[in-house]
C-alpha cells in the first residue's frame, strides 16, 4: 500500500524531520515562521519508529543558514534537515551542536555582565548529551533546561 503523506510535498525549500513532537513549535518560533511569506506546514504527533512521536516542518522557499541550523540544534539536537529542489531531496544533513555558540543563547545568570551590557554572548559546549554549556563571561554552567534562546 502506498504510504500516504500527512503533509503535502514541497517543490523548493527545506524539510526538517525527526523533531521531537514537543519541540515543533519551538523550532517554528526559532525560525520566525510566523513572518515567512510562503507556504509552510507543521505536522506533529506523527508516529515514528525511532522516536515514538515526532514532528516535521516543511518550509517552501527557504534554505536554512548555518546560524539557524545551530539554533535548531539547541532545542532539537537530533533533527535531519533536507534541502528540497524540484520535489527531490538534494541534500540531507543531521544537525550538529557546534562547540561554540555565539549570540545564540542568553545567559540565565541575572548577574552576568551580558545581561547588563550589549555584548555578544559566547558559550562553550561542554557536553552534548546531556547538553551542558558554559558562559564565557560569568563562567556559569547550564544544563538544557536552563538555556534561554536569544
Amino acid at each position, binding site marked *: 500500500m502506498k504510504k500516504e503523506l500527512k503533509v503535502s510535498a514541497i517543490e523548493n525549500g527545506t524539510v526538517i524531520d525527526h523533531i521531537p513532537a514537543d519541540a515543533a513549535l519551538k523550532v517554528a518560533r526559532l525560525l520566525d515562521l510566523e513572518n515567512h511569506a510562503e507556504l509552510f506546514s507543521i505536522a506533529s504527533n506523527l508516529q515514528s519508529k525511532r522516536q515514538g512521536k515526532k514532528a516535521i516542518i516543511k518550509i517552501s522557499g527557504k534554505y536554512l543558514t548555518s546560524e539557524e541550523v545551530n539554533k535548531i540544534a539547541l532545542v532539537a539536537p537530533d533533527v535531519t534537515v533536507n534541502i528540497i529542489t524540484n520535489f527531490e531531496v538534494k541534500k540531507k544533513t543531521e544537525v550538529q551542536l557546534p562547540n561554540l555558540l555565539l549570540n545564540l543563547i542568553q545567559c540565565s545568570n541575572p*548577574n*552576568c555582565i*551580558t545581561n*547588563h551590557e550589549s*555584548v555578544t554572548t559566547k558559550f562553550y559546549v561542554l557536553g552534548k548529551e546531556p547538553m551542558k554549556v558554559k558562559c564565557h563571561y560569568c563562567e556559569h554552567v547550564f544544563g538544557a533546561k536552563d538555556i534561554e534562546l536569544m
Partner: protein
Amino acid sequence: MPFKNRDIISIYDFSKSDLLHVLKVASAMEKAPRSNLLRGKIMGALFFEPSTRTRLSFISSMEQLSGQAMGFATAKVTSTRKGETLWDSIKMIEQYVDIIVIRHHLEGAARLASEAAKIPVINAGDGSNQHPTQTLLDLYTIQKTKGRLDNLKVGMLGDLKYGRTVHSLAIALSHFSNIKLYFIAPDALRMPKEYRDALSEKGIPFEETENLFDVSKELDVLYATRIQQERFPDPLEYEKYKGIYRLDKTLLNHIKPELKIMHPLPRVDEISPELDNTKHAVYFEQAGNGIPVRKAILSLVLGAVK
C-alpha cells in the same frame, strides 16, 4: 604560557606550572620587599564594588615596587552613575594607565573589560565568580605554612554556594596530587554542582557534611568563609544561616595538632578571636601574603620579571 601582557581573569586560565611560577616569583618578592621594578608604571585600580584588603594591597604592592596607582573605591564617583557602559569606561581609562585592576559586582565584568582593553587587566573579584589573586595568595599561604601543595586534606566551611574563594581554591587545588576536599556547609549553601562535577571529572575525591566535627580530625587545612549577606538574593535566607558555624577553642579538641585555619577575611563571627593567638590561625598572615603575590602578578604581567 608567558605572563607578559596577559590578562589575569580566572583561575581556569592557569596551568599547574603557571600557578607554581607565580608562587616562586612571590617568594622572591617576599625576600626583597622594596625595589624599582615598576618605576614609571601606573596602575588603574577600578573598584566598582567596595574592597579593603584587595584594593589596598594592590596599591601598596605597586608603590613598594616604585610604581604609581590611581583609581576609585566606589562606583558612586564614576560615570557609571551617568549611564556609561563598562566597555566605554575601560576604553577611556586604558589610555591613562599601564595596567587595570578591576573589581565589579557583575560576573564576567573583568572578562569583558579585558576584551575592551589593549593593556592587561587583572580581575580583583567579579561578583560571586572569580578572584584569582585571592586564590593565588591562598595557595601561597598553604605552601608557606604547610610546606607543600600535594598530599593535603583541605576542609572548606561555611558559604560554599556563593563564596567565590572556595570555588576557585577547589579548582586550583585540583592540579595537585593526593588532594582530598571536605565541604562543610548546610544543604542550602553546599558547593555548587558545576564545581563538584569539575572535581569528579579530574578524579579529586571530596566529602560533604553539615557537621564540622565529623571530619575535622582529618584536616590539614580548614578554610572558613563568611556567610556573605550581600550575595543572598533573599534577606530571610541570610538570617537563617548567619552565624551557623563559629570556630572557637572547643575546636581544638577535635583537630590534628598541625591544622592551619585560613579565612579570606573579613570575618564576622565565624572565628572567635580566642583562636587568633593559637598556632593554628594563619588568616592574618594570609591577608599579608596578598602583598608578595600581587607584586609577583603585577611584575610578571608588566614584563618586569619573567
